[in-house]
Structures are given as C-alpha cells and as structure tokens.
C-alpha cells in the first residue's frame, strides 16, 4: 500500500514534508489506520503520533486521513483510502508539535472556558440527587464526547478564531450542562455565551457533525443554545 505521511521535527526540519512510504499489508484483514501507523513505527521508530485505548474511547489519535478528520484506531484503511493511497496528516488548524502530534492547548482552553462542571447551589442530599429517566435521556448525545478535537479542527470558524470561538466540542459540553436537570447555573452559563464570538461564530457548516467519530451532533446542540439565548432575551 502507498502511504503519504506528514513529517516534521522542529529541531531538524525547517518545514514539514510528505514522505512517500510503501507497506505490505497482511492479507485477509482490514486493518485500522492505527495498525498501519504501528507497522510503520516498528520500521521507523521516529514517527510520532498519540494513541492509547485503540478502541475509539480515549480520543488520543484524532488525525486527518485522506482529507478527513477521524480516529485512526476505528477507521478501517479501506474506508480511509478507498482508492488505495493513504494520506496521513495532523489535525488541521492547530500548531504542529511533531509529525502527527498537534498542540491541543487552544482546544482545551476553549473547553475550560465553558466551565465544564456541574453547578448546583443547593446542599447535596445524603443520597444521590434524583433525576427522571426522561431528564437523563437529554444528556445522551452530549456526555459521550471524548475530546478528540476532530470536530473543532474541522470547523472553519474555529480555524479563524481559535482564541474566541468556543468551537463545536466546547459548545457541545456547554449544552451538556445546560441540559442537565441537576444544574442550576443556566443563567450564568448563557450570559457567558452571549457575545458575538462564543456561540454566534458558528455558521452551520456542519463539518463537526460529519466528522464526529462518536456520531454526536454539535450543530444541533449549538442551535439549542441559541434558542435558549433568544428565549431568554424575549
């Protein structure tokens, strides 16, 4: 198989390059892209990328495969490269540390900005706070985010304003707490999102929805936040 791999080491390279590599894939198994990376690394240990759980839940190995963001560990090679050539690049829009490793700090800062923790200003009961199955159901499609950054780094609005636009991942989590019947900070949360950038920089491009490896829908969550902001304004 033909592989084109993004390489960059800031200590030795003035600019990044794409290396052309050949790899004999074992017969009869549809490998994941991460398997391909591991095979390449066994040959050339200097190739750098993040990986851990290898089952799509830790969110380490978000990369760009043939132009599309996804998790290397749950993307079959046949799906990433239907025409046989696999092109692997780091997630776009974030500074590259080395090879496929990007500097995620801007992404994490946006996540922190929405204060992603439950706020409840009543004293906790001796047991759990009750929540109906219907109210709990509202968190599905939100809490499952793995912070892989595939969505935010596929978002043109985030590329333009990574310092001011919270981005799809952060906003999905903002809505996760707005939607939680146990959270009492709705007004404060909405007030923090009112400015022209935090939420309103979303242009409904929906790249986030099309790349999310967990099948989540940040655009819908952003729409719900906007509706809440509007109804609050009225």
């Amino acid at each position: 198989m033909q592989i084109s791999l993004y390489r960059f080491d800031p200590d030795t390279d003035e600019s990044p390059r794409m290396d052309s590599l050949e790899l004999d894939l074992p017969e009869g198994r549809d490998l994941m892209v991460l398997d391909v990376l591991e095979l390449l690394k066994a040959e050339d240990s200097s190739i750098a990328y993040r990986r851990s759980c290898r089952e799509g839940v830790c969110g380490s190995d978000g990369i760009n495969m043939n132009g599309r963001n996804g998790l290397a560990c749950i993307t079959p090679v046949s799906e990433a490269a239907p025409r046989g050539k696999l092109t692997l690049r780091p997630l776009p829009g974030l500074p590259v540390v080395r090879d496929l490793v990007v500097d995620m700090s801007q992404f994490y800062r946006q996540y922190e900005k929405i204060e992603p923790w439950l706020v409840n200003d009543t004293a906790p009961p001796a047991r759990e706070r009750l929540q109906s199955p219907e109210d709990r159901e509202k968190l599905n499609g939100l809490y499952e985010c793995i912070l892989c950054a595939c969505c935010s780094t596929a978002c043109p609005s985030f590329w333009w304003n990574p310092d001011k636009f919270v981005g799809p991942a952060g906003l999905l989590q903002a809505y996760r707490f707005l939607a939680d019947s146990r959270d009492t900070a709705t007004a404060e949360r909405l007030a923090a999102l009112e400015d022209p950038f935090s939420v309103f920089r979303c242009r409904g491009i929906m790249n986030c929805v099309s790349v999310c490896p967990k099948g989540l829908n940040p655009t819908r969550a952003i729409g719900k936040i906007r509706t809440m902001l509007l109804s609050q304004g009225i």
Partner: protein
Amino acid sequence: MSRLPTMEFDGVIVGGGGAGMRAGLQLAQSGLKTAVISKVFPTRSHTVSAQGGITCAIGSDDPDDDWRWHMYDTVKGSDYIGDQDAIEYMCSVGPEAVYELEHMGLPFTRTESGRIYQRPFGGQSKDYGKGGQASRTCAAEDRTGHALLHTLYQNNLKAGTTFLNEWFAIDLVLNQDGEVCGLVALEIESGEVVFVKSRATVLATGGAGRIYATTTNALMNTGDGVGMALRAGFPVQDIEMWQFHPTGIHQAGVLVTEGCRGEGGYLVNKDGERFMERYAPTAKDLAGRDVVARSMILEIMDGRGVGEDADHVLLKLDHLGEDTLRKRLPGIIELSKTFAHVDPAREPIPVVPTCHYMMGGVPTNIHGQALTQGVDGADRVVGGLYAIGEVACVSVHGANRLGGNSLLDLVVFGRAAGIHIEEAMRQGIDRRGPGEEDLARATARLERWNGSSSGESVADLKRELQRLMLVNFNVFRSGENMRSSIGELAELRERIARAHLADKSRVFNTARLEALELDNLLEVAEATAIVAEARTESRGAHARNDYTERDDDNWLCHSIYFAPDKRVGKRSVNFTPQTMEPFNPTERSY
C-alpha cells in the same frame, strides 16, 4: 547528568486515571500544593474504557441491600486472599464515594424513581450468597468509566488542580533514609528532564496488561508504577494474579462488558449450548470471571470452540431485543460492529478470555501507604510513598476481582489516600532531599537508553516478551512452561539492557517513551513469572495444571516479591474486619 531543574510540591500523583484524579481532587480541595503528572491528557487514561459500572450497595435496585453482602461476595470472589479490613472499608465507604460522584455530575443511568440504575454483575449475591443474584452495579449506560473519568477531570478543573500533562515518570528518587522524596520525570513535548520533589508521592499508574500480546488494556498500560517500585527496591504483592476477562472480542482483544451477561446475554459453544449451566449451575454466566474464563477454555480444549480454528465461543445478545441493547449497551453495539463486524442485535459476538486486570501490585494499607517488609518480616510503611488503584494491592481483589469493583477501588482509595496525605501534611512532614547520587540512580536507565548506539530494537523485544507471557501465563499455567519462561525472561533482561534506542531526538519522542516502558514491562513480566511458578496451588485466577487444588495450608496468604534479589516471600492475609466477624475460607462454587 548535570544538575536537574527542580519543581517542588507537597504531594505529587503519578497518573491521571480514576484513582489519581480522585486523590488529586481531594488534595486540591485541601489547599495543599499538589500536582497530577500524567503521560497522557487525563481523560485519555484507561479508566475511560471501563464499561459496565461501579459496584456498590446503594440500595437503589433493592432497598434492603447491604454492604456486608457486597463484602461477602468480594471476599469469596477473591478466593479468600483479599484483605478483609480493606474490603470492609471499601464496601462500607463505597456508597458515600458513589454519591459524591453523582453530586459532581456523573450522568448515571436512572430508574423510574429517579435513582441510580444498578445492573446485575458476576459474583454478586444477596444475603451472603443465599438470596440469589444481586443488581448492585451502578451504571452510566455502558460507558461508566468514561463518565466517571470526565466527571473527575471536570471537578479537578473546578478545584484548580495543577496538571503536568504528557509528562512521563522515569523513576522514584529516594533519600539517604530510604524514603521517597519525589521522582524524575520527562516532559514529553520538550524532552526536558526534571526532578519533581515531593513530600508525598502517589503511584496511580494503573495496570500492565501490555505484558500480554492480546489484552483489553490500552497501549499505554505498561506497568510504569510497578517498574518504579521494584527498581527502588520495594516489593509487589500477588503479582501472579492476572484476570482474564471472559469476553474480549476474538482477535481484537477489545473488551465487551460483563454487563452484557448482566442484562441477560449468555455464552454458547459451537453446538449452540449454554455451557455455563454445566460449570456453574446457580450463577451460570454470572459466576466469577476466573470461573467463566476457565470454563470457556475447557470448552475450546474439548473441541467445542467456534470458528475455523475452533478457538473462541460466542456471546449471544440478540434475544434481548434491539431496544434494550440501544438503551443499556449502546457502546457494545458500536464496538462489535467496528471490531467483530457483527451487529449484536442480530448475530452473536465472537469472544475469548483476554488479559484484563492486574490484581497484584504495590502492597498498601487502607490509607494507600505503600508497605514493605522489615528484616523481621513485619509490615513497614515506606516513607513518602503511596499507591492507589490498579497499581496498588490493598488488597481488595485478592486472587480474582469482581466486575464493577475496580471503579469502586479507584474512588474509595484515591479519596482515602488524599485524606491521609492531607492529615499527614497538617501534622508536618519533613524529608531530607536527595543527594547527587540518588538523582543519578533515578536517571540511570534514561541515560542508558540515550547512550545506546546499537542493539536490538524495542519493538522486536517487546513483541517477544508479550508472546512469551501470552503463551505461558494464560488462564491455565504449567510448571514446566513457567520454569522455562523464567530462564527466557532472564535472557530478555540482558538483551533489553543492550537494546538500542535509534531515535535520540528531543521533541515528543515516543520511541524513547516506548523504550522506557519496555523496562517496566520487563519488571512486571519477570515478577509475574517468578511468583506464578512459586505459588504451587490453584487459586482464583492462578490455575495450574500441575497443582490443580487450592492449598490453604500453605498458600492462604499473599505472595510478596522483591526484584533486586528476585526473592518470593509470603505475607499474611487480613482476617480481622473492624465491625464484624470475618468470612472464613470455604469451598468456592457458583
């Protein structure tokens, strides 16, 4: 090495999984100067992969549930070498720790009355084994670990915990009094090596399933804490006890939660027979994991395996209906489709027992303080060192862990260690700093790799080690194979000491990390092999075909292992819970 840059904290936690972050939260809230060091961004820690739930008698499913029943089940599950004071503490404090998680925002699945949903799990009973199957495992769908880990990270953000993310711990630093006064760590992005000085150092580094060629564990579960403890001369306990989870996806090794069987799924052999009815007539598919794993292997060895090589069995879920699967096991649908190419609503999942959990680890008391043995064989607290979670051996799991007890272990003992450190700091601790030689000892293996100029590759040696462990230290073990493996591991040690780190670059050098991890894998593998061969009985997860029976006369005890002289010793099991009579060993059947 020239003088190392130094950072100083009251407490340093190595590892940002469930245990590390629970301890980190406790310490951050106490106002002490603490840091969590993690080789990955914390939400990437392996706790994230835990699926089925956290077992705890909160009485949601059954208002009469009792933590003492949970304790009974855990003691029995441990095949009687779990420490009863520690199990008593875990099961009785558990409800408080679980409610705290809920208050922090953990999105548990709910019952109609709005309480936390609890599902049946293996080895859980009511009324001390006499009242039938208990539903005691608190769940957030089948993503409980993910929900728990993210909730803890979020609350650490709120509490202002200092995180040193993507830092790799190389070795502990001891002072001239033999106390731990911090560690040497490598900042992965910059390649800088730093002495992290600390008055309390907490190992929360998780397991080491990667000593096996197939495992449910993440690629980073390389036993770094065990390696650090052993190299520093501290012992590990019960390290021969490795849990093989009955349902790892055939070939991929990916975990399929026991919750599948809890929700009503069951295993079948090639004849479509529900074979667990023969091996465990009462609990059937929800017997202890060691029991189910052995039964599966026996079926396969008797020629009733499935597939071209008749090397696995099937987990049947389709009778549960698509609706239940979607509601209770959505993650399993995803994983089955991705890694087994089956839709469990229609076809069964091919599964095989797969290395899953390290019951052994650094021995500790219930405050998480690491223990060693004095010359008289009595327990002695290691100054400055704590261990919590999978790297620790409190021991609440003994020879076989029950499903759902690992998440409980993490939060209960992460919290306990935090409370103890807080109290110890308040009373005042002063430790001598290290000398130049002490620091040099802690950086020696990094220097060795950095100075290597030729030799075998890390990838090749790792593959060999993992293969050796998979073949010889699996569900069933033979004395002969174990003895020859010990020789091969001694050779591997010499070869690894001469191996080559080809990439010497500075920035985000993952080849260097894998080399440092290989040192740790070797420590865990060799300890496992030597102690497994020494324990001449079958108990819990340790099943030998040359010593097929449990031997309470000689082995109703912990094993303890010291790496410097490869010495195996024994340590008493605690049979003195504080509030009740102990559970005495009886024959264990399900």
